[in-house]
């Protein structure tokens, strides 16, 4: 039994990296605007579909299709914040949550209207292969997903810690009023962060579409898994989102193998309930919320 442990950890980490990316993209929006994007799952799904359309529909090379999908979702996220959320930003939380939910619902309707309820399997842009490390099997999917997410994380870290834009982002994270006082355009910043979050989510969707079939309902599952990773790591913490995502992926695999296979399906539902009841600040508390 225990000999399988390294294998489970490896494949759990790979899935967990995906959850981490999705949770991170949700956290970026939440940290910047204190609005939880309940439509984020559908944005992720829309990103996956966009790549599908650009690469197979228009016959573009995969990398260009991916860049175009990111651009489309960035515009969508930017527009959502600028035209729909900014006008009601002073309103009740329910309206903000509903607005995000409704945008997601509209996206899902568009996907279903175009593609119906069929599932689709986009082909991978790289050959599938298997590497053996002792008894542990690592697939090309694992390598691509982990490598891709790690590169993204490094890029984000540099963006936040080193560049002048990162200073603006951190300043606005810390105090919106203070940022406004020193001349930062906070509404523009919020819109940019929504665009950035949606673009990151689209990247998650691209990775997701390589390991699971696409359906218009993909967003529902994505949303719940993203929430689970966010709450596990500590809501609003960027580092926590990553750690929570990886931990969620591993937990799911371990519980599924050693306890009961049903846990693969329900860990994502149980985690937010248990974490918020026992330790609402998540595993990494609040102290980690300021820096990555």
């Amino acid at each position, binding site marked *: 039994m225990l000999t399988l442990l390294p294998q489970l950890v490896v494949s759990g980490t790979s899935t967990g990296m995906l959850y981490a990316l999705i949770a991170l993209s949700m956290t970026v929006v939440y940290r910047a605007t204190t609005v939880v994007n309940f439509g984020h799952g559908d944005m992720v799904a829309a990103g996956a579909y966009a790549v599908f359309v650009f690469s197979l529909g228009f016959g573009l090379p995969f990398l260009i299709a991916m860049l175009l999908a990111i651009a489309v979702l960035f515009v969508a996220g930017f527009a959502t914040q600028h035209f729909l959320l900014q006008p009601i930003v002073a309103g009740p939380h329910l309206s903000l949550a509903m607005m995000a939910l*409704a945008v997601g*619902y509209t996206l899902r309707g568009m996907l*279903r209207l175009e593609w119906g309820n069929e599932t689709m399997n986009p082909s991978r842009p790289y050959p599938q292969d298997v590497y053996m490390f002792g008894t542990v099997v690592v697939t090309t999917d694992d390598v691509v997903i982990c490598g891709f997410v790690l590169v993204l994380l490094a890029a984000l870290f540099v963006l936040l810690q080193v560049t002048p834009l990162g200073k603006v982002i951190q300043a606005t994270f810390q105090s919106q009023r203070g940022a406004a006082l020193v001349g930062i355009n906070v509404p523009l910043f919020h819109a940019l962060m929504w665009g950035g979050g949606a673009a990151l989510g689209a990247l998650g969707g691209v990775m997701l579409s390589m390991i699971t079939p696409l359906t218009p309902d993909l967003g529902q599952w994505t949303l719940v898994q993203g929430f689970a990773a966010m709450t596990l790591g500590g809501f609003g913490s960027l580092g926590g989102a990553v750690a929570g995502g990886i931990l969620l992926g591993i937990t799911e695999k371990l519980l599924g193998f050693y306890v009961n296979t049903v846990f693969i399906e329900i860990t994502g539902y149980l985690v937010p309930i248990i974490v918020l009841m026992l330790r609402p600040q998540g595993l990494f508390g609040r102290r980690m919320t300021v820096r990555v």
Partner: protein
Amino acid sequence: MDRRLFWLVPLALLPVPLWLNPYQQYVLNTALVYIPVGIGFNLVVGNLGLLAFSNVAYFGLGAYTSGVLMAQLGMPWWMTIIPAASVGGLAGSIASIPALRGVRLFYLAIMTLAFGELMRWTYIRWEALTGGSMGMAVPTADLLGWPLDSDRRKFYVFLALVVLTLTLTDRLMRSRFGRAFLAIKDNEISAAAMGVATDRYIVLAFAWGGAVVGIGGAMFAISVGHLSPVSFDLTELIRQFAIIMVGGLGSLIGAIIGAAIITVAPQVFISFPGFDELVFGILIVLVILFLPRGLSSLLARVHPAFTDRFYRG
């Protein structure tokens, strides 16, 4: 205008089935099913002001309680209404536990969302009772031995249940309980400081909302005749949100208007899957932007009797 004149509305509806074909009758019945669903949801989200996203769980539990009791134990449908309401109410009280522990806003929304999804998973996995993802057939309903085998007969039973839940909830909202809900929504801390036992009222509101939605679930079970987990997913949650947002938050009349629109509108474009989601999504966006109090606020402009007194923005 006296508010008692509202009693004329159900009376006026009594002869309506004579002019409807079976399909139109079915649509009207579905609209009636969604009125208790909207009322229960509105009570927690609109009147109490807590972001509880577990309404579909109460709806599904009510529907499955009714369906399983009929199919497995051979109980007549009318005897399953109270169990369905009790299970819905119990689920509501369970969903209120995080709220009692101080979980609020988006955190509460996420927890209750996860609770609802967990329930949907239960319907899929508890195959012995629910038939799993293939779903289960609901036997023919009856009322004290009178078979409810046509949509026309169901209509009258549904109408009675809708009037009952509407009247009772209206009574509740006008009692000290309802005033306590409004006080909690306005300012929970000052309500507690004034001596309102906020915990008790939060549980009560969740339980009442769950029970009313559970009754809606029992109606849904015999209205569609076939229960499957797909009917209780996140898409259904947004449909129920559309009812209360489009109709008007915290308004009983809003729940009726919302239920009617959300049921009738998709029939127009039923042959295009996805189009209903698209239209509802855009509708919710437009309502939030331009009519934050929903369509019922338009009625209130026409005549003050339609003004709802149970909502604080």
